[in-house]
């Protein structure tokens, strides 16, 4: 750009004032032009929906109708709505019973993959396969497995002598079934992240530990875990965010009553409640309020993460 300005101005150079203005404009403005596409796209598809949702959440809106001002009523009615608290509690319980075993199993898997073993590449690809499967396909298969009347799991339980479990209509079995799907899909993904972190752990630490007579398990606890602590924290956060937004699995697992999370809302998550409000009963304002509450929840979780990371850093610095 700069050169082209000089070239076109050719024989009679513009006055020094204008030239320096152009030069400064070039220097200051052009970078913004270059990055503009991102920010324009972000404004259109990220910022605008966010603000518009916020505006909607303060109104009573229906598709096709005009909006009426309601102030904070959509939020205050959430506070007294038992369906909201039920959904929040379900989101939390499903989140815990899927995130905790998922991350523990991922740690174990990563530790195993970190050993020198035959066909390591194959196993590494294999653990990622569930993650590459679509939610819809995976959930449909699991919904068939967990089918109360015809499913494989109840058949096997029957062989062992147990009564069939009502996987979709009872609360905890349904939540466990949904968590199983989530765990199945994400364990390998997290394992690969852990594996990457484990490979960055210096080998000398292990050698030193081995010289001191530490067992494999001791090495895992005292060398591996502390070394990859930031990575663990990262996966906890990412999994928590994923769990908060859980939607496809319960929706499809519930089949025809998936949106309401079962006949007694026994596995309705926040996202499902939001979808039900917005699309089934058409209360867009209330749905928007739930969307904002979810955003605030996630910001809160992000804030806690930052705090923990900071205190970790401090501890490390004062420790070393």
């Amino acid at each position: 750009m700069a050169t082209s300005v000089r070239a076109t101005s050719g024989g009679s150079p513009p006055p020094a004032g204008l030239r320096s203005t152009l030069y400064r404009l070039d220097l200051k403005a052009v970078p913004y032009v270059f990055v503009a596409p991102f920010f324009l796209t972000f404004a259109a598809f990220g910022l605008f929906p966010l603000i518009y949702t916020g505006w909607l959440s303060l109104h009573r809106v229906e598709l096709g109708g005009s909006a009426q001002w309601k102030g904070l009523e959509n939020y205050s009615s959430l506070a007294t709505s038992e369906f909201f608290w039920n959904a929040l509690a379900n989101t939390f319980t499903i989140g815990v019973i899927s995130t905790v075993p998922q991350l523990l199993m991922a740690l174990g898997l990563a530790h195993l993959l970190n050993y020198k073993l035959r066909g390591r590449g194959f196993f590494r690809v294999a653990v990622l396969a569930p993650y590459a499967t679509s939610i819809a396909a995976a959930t449909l298969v699991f919904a068939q497995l967990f089918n109360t009347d015809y499913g494989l799991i109840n058949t096997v339980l029957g062989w062992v002598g147990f009564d069939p479990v009502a996987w979709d209509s009872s609360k905890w079995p349904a939540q466990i079934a949904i968590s199983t799907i989530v765990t199945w899909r994400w364990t390998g993904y997290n394992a690969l992240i852990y594996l990457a972190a484990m490979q960055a752990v210096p080998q000398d630490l292990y050698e030193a530990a081995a010289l001191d007579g530490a067992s494999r398990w001791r090495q895992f606890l005292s060398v591996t875990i502390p070394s990859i602590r930031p990575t663990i924290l990262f996966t906890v956060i990412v999994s928590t965010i994923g769990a908060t937004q859980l939607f496809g699995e319960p929706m499809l697992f519930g089949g025809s009553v998936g949106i309401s999370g079962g006949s007694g809302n026994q596995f309705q998550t926040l996202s499902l409640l939001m979808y039900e409000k917005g699309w089934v009963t058409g209360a867009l304002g209330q749905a928007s309020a739930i969307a904002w509450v979810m955003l605030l929840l996630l910001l809160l979780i992000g804030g806690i993460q930052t705090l923990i990371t900071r205190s970790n850093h401090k501890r490390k610095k004062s420790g070393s």
Partner: protein
Amino acid sequence: MRTSSSRHGRGRRTAINAVAAVAVMATGTALLTGCGSDGDNGKGDAAGGEQITLRIGTFGSFGYDNTTGAKLYAEYEKAHPNIKIEESNVADGQKYWDTLKLRLSRDSGLADIQALEVGYIAEATGPAMADKWTDLAKTGGGDVGAFLDWKVKQATTADGKVIGLGTDIGPMAICYNKDLFAQAKLPTDRTEVAKLWAGDWAKFIATGETYKKSAPAGTAFHDSASGLFNAVISSQPVQYANAKGELDYENSPGVKKAWDTAVAAAKGELTAKLRQFDEKGTWNAAFKNAKFATVACPSWMTGIIKDQAGPENQGKWDIAAPPVAGNWGGSFLAVPKSGKHAKEAAELAAWLTAPAQHAKVFGVNGNIPSTKDTLTSAAVQDAKLPYFGDTPVGKIYSEAAAGITPAPISRWDGQVKTFLTDNGILDIEQRGTDPAKAWENVKKLVDDKIDQ
């Protein structure tokens, strides 16, 4: 199409549709705004007598198309060489309506003719949408007087505009499995069977008790308590709304009757504890495995039974008159005002819903017509269904149609029905929730989730 099962469409919706459902969610607004919204209908020049394309949006099966239907489009195109008809069909009635609402609100992406299901007709004629539609009593030459009076009334707005012309209606009977009836020592002849419960749903429950006494192991009398609820409420003169068309389900004698009947069936273990149109296919499989002996049966349900029970069960099912006549489902064709060819579209809608075409669709698809003369015509009266052992379906269903007392409907009917059946009755049936508690829960759901 005909079911008013409001949250989910109907019939053979299994794995594939669930995948589609997720696709809808994933693509979100992209689907709602994008698909099928190429709004320019006039492909030719704008001069007189030009070539035009009329688009018609439907859901489920209307039986008009040129491959499996009555080939009505081909016939119309032949008579009107300047018109080409394109149908875009969505399987799921609820998703179709959600999309249509969004498009109506923006006046874009609409087809020239849009089909409307009776469960949403009160919303379509309501204040928010009434002005979006062409008055078909004035435009297009439709003969409003030919339709059943209550059918026209349902599609009439507060200021007297007729926004939809009737396609089919859903008069209801009871389909029953003769094999199971015989094993349970009940009569199998359809007139004898109808006598068991004629006049009162309580007798239907009593028949269920009799069935249970000597029932074959592993079978139930009725398919689902929520289906029974639906059947009973469909036969009631007062349903979810009061005479003014306002939601008043709490004080409705019809809702009470349906609720009590369904609860009695659930508590008495007379049902197979299924959910109709269940996406996992458990309900469908139960037809083939003969898990239940009766199912409430609007004419369109006969097709589902035939498909699900399969050829090996041919002749095992029969149809008997219901305890009380009722209507379950039925649709309309409406013409959005904003279309470029509203006049031509109204003419096509009038033709598609004229008695002659009703008779043709009935012949191919079994949809019970909503025009008075077609109902009494020989074509309908003499119709027989081979799968059901040559049952005189036309006679049974037109008699049921004559006994229908239309109830006032409100904008929230479909939603309240979903709460009552999926969150109330189903909860009692499958999870053993106390009925009083389930009723409280339904009330809370309505208060919380319907933003009146």
